[in-house]
């Protein structure tokens, strides 16, 4: 059998959630031996791209309050958030912000030396805590650097995890491939946390890093765990053309305007109360409507878009708080936002769904937790508010880290690996993929799949489009693409890509089936054929279980209400 490495806690994924979990587990007890396993080098995780802010209530003396943050989150979610979970998020955040400050986070400051906050979409108070426009980057850096303090955290840079090992309903470890050598290895540990982030690369036009593929989600899915609410995909209003790189909501938080080809601030029509700072689903829908009604621009690539005008903010302010955005504009779009409005278009940005977890981040498998974007403990419901995701990663990173560490201490050294599972997994990836045969280019399959998703599962969806998309995905899945041309063992990214594509196809299918089943419009999921929210039938979470190649088995799961009854959502 393959080589084995043993630890107490395995953290899979090293984004904000993973690193926060590592610190939390390491400081819970110094005898807990932690492995952080990531398919990229640890500090290169997608979280570094987060730009605009992290939501927290810091200034109650200035008028903010936690109740309001909870309500904004729940209302933003179109009442699909579990309210106890939202509450937990809000209550924990102030501590996390200050803790990050103590660890060296370069939060932007007010003149009086205190931490600064800015406006963000959907909030009734400026509570996006920011560090210029590189929040996620700085948070990652702070956490990564703080990890250096602990001798009991071990980083496994560039190890691709492929499957979860379990026995008797308990987590026992995982299998992974070391990229550098190509060695297939077993990691065993009594506790694990999946922090593999979002899956936004199943769309072509996407703000995500190339590494944001659903292999972590798929791992859990194949292990029999449910994926929850996968049909809710957030489209961020301002993706730069042609690449899809994000212009942070902070740009609008700082006072940017969205304009159509008549020069109008069209958001006046759609959300007079909040204008550009309405939640993302609202703004994105408004933009697409403007485009459909002929008031859009054409980018030189032929794509429809609108413009984001920041010129009135002035060079000084822009350089001070939106420097990164300016750099992105100049470099990737050829536009200096100081002089000129920039072309933008709604872009795939966040997956509200993820691995089904309870309020503690525990999955259905004992000993396994999940945190961050990969998890769905239903903080965000049908639509996440900007700046609430980094918050979620940090809060549940800490919670799950601590719980997993305690569990690991209680079950130290008690793992049993089922050889059969390992052999099966080896067979799946080596016989099924690595040594597979075929004449279809896997990258072409990926392109067609992501283009299909862009086309049919975008801001507005309908029965016909979704059905066509599902058909197309299933066709692609069945075509002869499963093969790896690169035969080397060492650093075989071709192999990695093929494993990713395999998981992408399965996940895309779950998204589409979920979207087809949800015959209503709620939050980010907007059906032109069912344009209204239907609380009688669909005030429920969607669960999808793996059921072989034929597609997922679906189920419903109740929403937790503790405070607010659903009302119509208006801004």
């Amino acid at each position, binding site marked *: 059998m393959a080589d084995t490495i043993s630890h107490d806690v395995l953290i899979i994924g090293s984004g904000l959630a993973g690193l926060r979990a590592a610190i939390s587990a390491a*400081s819970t007890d110094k005898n807990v031996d932690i492995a952080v396993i990531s398919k*990229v*080098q640890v*500090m*290169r*995780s*997608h979280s*570094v*791209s987060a730009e605009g802010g992290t939501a927290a209530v810091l200034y109650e003396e200035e008028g903010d309050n936690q109740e309001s943050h909870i309500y904004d989150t729940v209302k933003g979610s179109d009442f699909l958030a579990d309210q106890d979970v939202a509450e937990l998020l809000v209550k924990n955040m*102030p*501590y996390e*912000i*200050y*803790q990050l*400050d*103590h*660890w*060296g986070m*370069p939060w*932007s*400051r007010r003149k*009086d*030396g*205190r931490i600064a906050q800015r406006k963000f979409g959907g909030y009734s108070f400026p509570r996006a805590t920011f560090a210029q426009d*590189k929040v996620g980057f*700085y948070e990652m850096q702070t956490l990564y*650097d*703080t990890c*250096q*303090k602990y001798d009991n955290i071990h980083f496994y*840079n560039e190890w691709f995890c492929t499957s979860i090992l379990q026995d008797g309903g308990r987590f026992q470890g995982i299998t992974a491939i070391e990229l*550098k050598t190509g060695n297939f290895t077993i990691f065993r540990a009594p506790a694990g946390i999946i922090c593999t982030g979002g899956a936004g690369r199943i769309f072509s036009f996407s703000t995500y*890093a*190339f*590494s944001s593929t659903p292999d972590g989600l798929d791992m859990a899915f194949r292990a029999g765990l449910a994926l929850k609410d996968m049909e809710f995909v957030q489209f961020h209003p301002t993706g730069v053309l042609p*690449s899809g*790189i994000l212009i942070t909501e902070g740009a609008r938080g700082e006072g940017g*305007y969205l*304009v159509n080809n*008549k*020069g*109008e601030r069209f958001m006046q029509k759609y959300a007079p109360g909040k204008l550009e700072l309405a939640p993302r689903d609202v703004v994105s829908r408004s933009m697409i409507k403007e485009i459909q009604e002929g008031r859009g621009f054409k980018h030189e690539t032929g794509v429809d878009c609108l*413009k984001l*005008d920041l*010129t009135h903010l002035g060079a000084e302010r822009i350089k001070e708080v939106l420097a990164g955005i300016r*750099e992105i504009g100049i*470099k990737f*779009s050829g536009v200096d936002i100081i002089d*000129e*409005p920039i072309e933008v278009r709604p872009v795939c940005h966040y997956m509200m769904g993820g691995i089904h977890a309870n309020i503690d981040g525990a999955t259905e498998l004992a000993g396994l937790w999940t945190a961050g974007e990969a998890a769905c403990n239903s903080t965000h419901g049908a639509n996440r508010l900007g700046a609430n995701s980094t918050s979620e990663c940090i809060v549940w990173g800490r919670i799950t880290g601590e719980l997993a560490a305690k569990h690991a201490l209680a079950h130290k050294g008690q793992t049993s690996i089922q050889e059969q599972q390992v052999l099966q997994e080896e067979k799946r990836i080596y016989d099924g993929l690595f040594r597979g045969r075929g004449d279809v280019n896997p*990258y072409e399959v990926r392109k067609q799949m992501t283009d299909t998703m862009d086309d049919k599962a975008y801001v507005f969806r309908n029965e016909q489009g979704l059905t066509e998309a599902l058909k197309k995905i299933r066709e692609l899945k069945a075509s002869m693409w499963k093969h790896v*041309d*690169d*035969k*080397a*063992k*060492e*650093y075989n*990214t*071709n192999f990695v890509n093929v494993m990713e594509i395999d998981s992408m196809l399965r996940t895309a299918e779950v998204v589409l089936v979920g979207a087809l089943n949800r015959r209503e419009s709620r939050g980010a999921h907007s059906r032109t054929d069912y344009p209204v929210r239907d609380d009688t039938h669909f005030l429920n979470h969607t669960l999808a279980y793996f059921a072989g190649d034929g597609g997922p088995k679906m189920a419903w799961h109740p929403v937790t209400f503790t405070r607010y009854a659903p009302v119509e959502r208006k801004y």
Partner: protein
Amino acid sequence: MTEQVIEKIESMEKKREKEKHGKETIRSSVVLKIYRANKRAGEQPHYDSVEVPVQRWTTVLDALLHAKQYKDPSIGIRYSCRMASCGSCGMKINGIPRLACYTKVSELEGSTVTVEPLANFPHIRDLVTDFAQFFSHHHDVKPFVQNENADIKDKNKLSEFMQSPEDLDKFLQFSYCIKCGLCYSACPTVATDTKFPGPQALSQAYRYFIDNRDNATKDRINIVDDKHGIWRCHFAGSCSSVCPKGVDPALGIQLLRGHMLGFSKNEKKIADLQDRLRKDEEAKQ
């Protein structure tokens, strides 16, 4: 307001139109000359040339990925964010360390672009190098705030360390570092000295040294005051000239050394937790 915006858009569009036909070299394709080797598997170093289509905004990374996807899937390459914030895609492009995702083909001269792995990093395969030593240098400068209150003990008394925008400016620029290793690859000392921490780690030492939340001043100086430490920087400046993020590691290193030579004094006070509470009290009275 409306007219202004339209005017602005129109005037900029004209300007761009002009630029498009002006200075940037617009090509429809480019030849990538890619360094290939996988010594562990016995593949000796050689160069492969691949022609790929390019547009105005195509970056070297885009071009390489196109080559990987449609010409030769076996090209070994490391990348992730494609927006110059993760630090994965450092490589030598036409001989100089750069980020592939941050270098547009249109910015480069000639019709061939040569891409090679970063120098000064052990080679793994093709364009991919091993960062273990680089990371361990970073680890060795203790890149975290040291201060007995660094972990919040009492969750009921929450407050930040006070830090004025000026305090922040002293270290902010050094925390722009994305650990891409370009500086490490360019530095002439690193080229021969394996124990030299390199510009990245040394500038991070300064970043924490000058942060007014940190009070491990002496310890930090002792770490870098070594035969192979900070004194092995000769201000060759190459680190700063290749840094894609404006970290200016050369500056950080010299400033730290200024403190060690007694040219500068570290006047920082530990930003006191109590500071704010005290001020609040005062305000109340």
